[in-house]
């Protein structure tokens, strides 16, 4: 036999199995393209020149690792479907006289062809999409679109190496299947795996326990910093729980139903229960995969789109005024005011007040000021900001009065329901928890809880200032100028019409004045100035890149889910054809059979979607708390993002289902 024979055979096999191989190669092409794009973005010089590119590229590098890992698992898994289906074919070749090493050669050539096609097409598609995506990213970052067409040999090499490795793995797996098995086993492989599944009660219970624990963590974790660590614990628990419940739990439940004879021996339940048991055994892992992929898509897309859509509100939280000068003092602010006025800019909505800030522990009944951060107490860490009533009323337009020892309170990122509050050895009565607070953005960027406290008068404020200094000890206070331990001043204003140009002009004026003033060494300058439009770029690059990555991975995972669905429909259709005929022969009408099978298929395919919905529902509280870390305070807003993502995903899922269902019915009624 000549070498050309094997090549021809391999090509023929690919063509003959195109219904199964087609989607696999398509998936491989898309995965290659995705990997190429994301790797290319990570080194793209056009992107590097954009503002905030550093953040973006860190995020993209993470994405690269995720996509790479995903490619390995996904392609390997999809391929195992193919091999399983083709075992019989291998068996026939074997019987017809192809030795196993010849078979290995054929499989090798097939894999080589499939790999080369996927890689070549994938790179072409990738390069085309790469440019498109770059334009989209540039658009989101509101940067001028980078010109030219960028192709990096390094990226091509990395992509080729990764996918070469994956296809080598696939090849090794394929020949292993052939070498291990005897021809008879190969011939009958398709009929293997039809044994009745055993009910694994212990695993089912463990699955329920894992899922329950994961849900419990997600729902009950109230502390935001804990949430980040526990989030991963919850994710792992839910993933393990999902696999166990889909594999062991479903079978156990169905067996329980079957034991109930009065339920089981009803026309509708009879075929459904046994049919489902059989389907679950074959499909549990695939369905669990779909479920987890769907959950990832939902969480990622809803989270990142929420961040993106909510960016403006987060930006306003962090930078409440167009121009913000914080941790400053009266002299500096005078200088800023003059500079702004000299530049001919009319300051509007001016806010100015003195305040104290300190770190503290939140302890039962109050706050304990500290400078001594240790990890184990991190969870109860808090930021305190204290102002006096006069400034509060003036800046917020309120008209509160406070008796001595009374305070107003506003707490963020945690809940406090005590009637009194102890701070620095003094216990105050909480008169009211108030909603509007003076404009101050610095603390919203922190992970810890924030406590805004309004004390009755300036004397009290200064007393606390001194007390804070006392906590600190003399040494540390030397850093501060005498008599002004912690007291800072905030000054913020808006420019007319919130005009970006004017705000940037104000920035230039302040920067110039500040630079000039600091040449005088004796000048009492302190504080930082932050201009909202200027900072917007940073926000855009972080939120925008997270958004792009979320959409990108969402798309990738959706594609994976779609492909798994397709293969499921295909293999189900082949199996069901036989059942379909037998049931008709023993007296089930065509319509009844069709309905029964349709119902089962519907349950099987929408079970992962529903489960993914439930997972996302339980993930909601914990992710909502993580969102808070990104300055997104609105639960309603996130809820809409989740519902929106779920709606879009469900529609997409249903469309894919309907399309593949047609292939399925063609197979069944063939």
């Amino acid at each position: 036999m000549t070498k050309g024979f094997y090549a021809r055979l391999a090509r023929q096999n690919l063509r003959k199995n195109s219904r199964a191989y087609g989607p696999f190669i398509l998936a491989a092409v898309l995965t290659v393209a995705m990997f190429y794009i994301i790797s290319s973005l990570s080194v793209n010089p056009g992107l590097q020149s954009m503002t905030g590119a550093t953040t973006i590229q860190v995020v993209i590098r993470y994405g690269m690792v995720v996509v790479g890992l995903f490619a390995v698992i996904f392609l390997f898994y999809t391929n195992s479907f193919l091999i399983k289906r083709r075992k019989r074919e291998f068996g026939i070749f074997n019987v017809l006289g192809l030795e196993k090493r010849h078979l290995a050669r054929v499989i090798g050539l097939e894999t080589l062809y499939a790999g080369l096609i996927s890689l070549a097409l994938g790179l072409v598609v990738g390069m085309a999409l790469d440019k498109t995506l770059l334009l989209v990213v540039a658009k989101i970052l509101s940067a001028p679109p980078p010109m030219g067409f960028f192709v990096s040999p390094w990226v091509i090499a990395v992509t080729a190496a990764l996918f070469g490795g994956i296809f080598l793995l696939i090849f090794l797996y394929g020949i292993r299947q052939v070498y291990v098995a005897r021809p008879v086993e190969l011939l009958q492989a398709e009929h293997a795996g039809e044994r009745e599944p055993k009910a694994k009660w212990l695993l089912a219970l463990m699955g329920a326990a894992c899922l329950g624990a994961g849900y419990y963590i997600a729902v009950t974790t109230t502390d935001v910093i804990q949430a980040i660590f526990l989030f991963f614990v919850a994710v792992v628990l839910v993933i393990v729980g999902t696999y166990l419940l889909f594999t062991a739990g479903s079978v156990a439940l169905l067996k329980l139903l079957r034991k109930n004879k009065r339920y089981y021996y009803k026309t509708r339940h009879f075929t459904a229960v046994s049919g489902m048991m059989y389907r679950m055994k074959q499909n549990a892992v695939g369905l669990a995969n779909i479920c987890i992929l769907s959950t990832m898509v939902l969480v990622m897309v809803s989270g990142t789109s929420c961040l993106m859509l909510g960016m403006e509100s987060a930006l306003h939280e962090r930078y409440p005024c167009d121009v913000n000068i914080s941790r400053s003092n009266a002299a500096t602010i005078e200088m800023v005011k003059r500079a702004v006025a000299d530049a001919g800019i009319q300051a509007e909505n001016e806010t100015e007040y003195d305040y104290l800030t300190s770190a503290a522990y939140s302890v039962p009944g109050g706050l304990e000021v500290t400078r001594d951060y240790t990890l184990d107490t991190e969870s109860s860490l808090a930021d305190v900001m204290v102002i006096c009533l006069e400034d509060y009323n003036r800046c917020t337009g309120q008209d509160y009065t406070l008796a001595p020892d009374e305070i107003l309170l506003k707490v963020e990122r945690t809940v406090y329901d005590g009637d009194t509050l102890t701070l620095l050895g003094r216990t105050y009565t909480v008169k009211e928890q108030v909603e509007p607070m003076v404009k101050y953005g610095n603390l919203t960027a922190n992970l810890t809880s924030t406590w805004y406290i309004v004390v009755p008068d300036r004397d009290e404020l200064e007393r606390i200032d001194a007390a804070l200094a006392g906590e600190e000890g003399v040494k540390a206070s030397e850093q501060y100028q005498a008599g002004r331990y912690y007291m800072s001043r905030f000054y913020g204003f808006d420019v007319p019409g919130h005009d970006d140009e004017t705000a940037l002009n104000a920035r230039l004026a302040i920067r110039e004045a500040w630079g000039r003033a600091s040449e005088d060494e004796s000048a009492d300058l302190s504080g930082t100035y932050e201009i909202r439009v200027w900072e917007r770029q940073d926000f855009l690059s972080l939120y925008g890149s997270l958004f792009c990555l979320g959409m990108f991975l969402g798309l990738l995972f959706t594609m994976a889910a779609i492909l798994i669905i397709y293969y499921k429909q295909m293999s189900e259709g082949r199996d069901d054809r036989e059942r379909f005929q037998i049931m008709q022969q023993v007296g089930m009408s065509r319509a009844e059979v069709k309905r029964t099978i349709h119902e089962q298929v519907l349950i099987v395919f929408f079970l992962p979607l529903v489960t993914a919905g439930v997972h996302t529902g339980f993930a909601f509280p914990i992710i909502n708390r993580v969102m808070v870390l990104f300055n997104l305070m609105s639960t309603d807003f996130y809820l809409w993002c989740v519902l929106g993502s779920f709606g879009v995903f469900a529609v997409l899922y249903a469309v894919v289902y309907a399309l593949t269902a047609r292939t399925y019915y063609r197979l069944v009624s063939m």
Partner: protein
Amino acid sequence: MTILKVENLGKIYTGRFGGNQVHALTNVSFDVEQGEYVAIMGESGSGKTTLLNILAAFDRPTSGQVFLQERDLTAIREGELAAFRRESLGFVFQDFNLLDTFSLRDNIFLPLVLGGMGYVEMAQRLQPIAQRMGITDVLTKYPYEVSGGQKQRAAVARAVITRPKLLLADEPTGALDSKSSDALMDLFADLNREGQTILMVTHSTKAASHAGRVIFIKDGELFHQIYRGGATNEQMYQKIADTLTLLATGGSGHD
């Protein structure tokens, strides 16, 4: 009493594009009396299976009629067909057609469950049938766990548990070894003695030799039929063999 009446049955298959027509059955007529055991023989492609499919209402004839106890099978509406099949007909197939997803017991229950019968009654019906089929011990097993003979006996149990007017069998011994075949044929003979009307399509001379009458089909037409009369199985076997020889050598055998 005539239980099955086949009148001038014809079936023409037309190619997908209206091209070449194939006459699968031409003008086939015969009666089956209550309690009869009839075998239909013929070569591959002679139209046996087409005939059986029409008798089972899986397929509709191009011309002619089939009456099962005065009821015209060809006129039953699609919606009623399934129930009719379930209640009046029992099937035994060459490759058993048991569902792998059910235990033998549930496979046998299947037509009853579809008919909406309660569990207690089903269990009562099953008990004697399982006993005489010799499958009581394997009822909880699954089709892939038992032998071919046991599978076929379970299939027979499934066919007769509905107490059908007519038991249709399509090459029931086709996938069995000789010992299982003999046992199955004895079982059929027993069932027939108890009054079960049986119509069996078969290749096997041996299987057919158990029947009370053998109808031969050639090229879609009724070719010949022989009655057992008082003959033993061995004599019947000889008669069938002779007819088959005649059939193969191309004689015209209408008598």
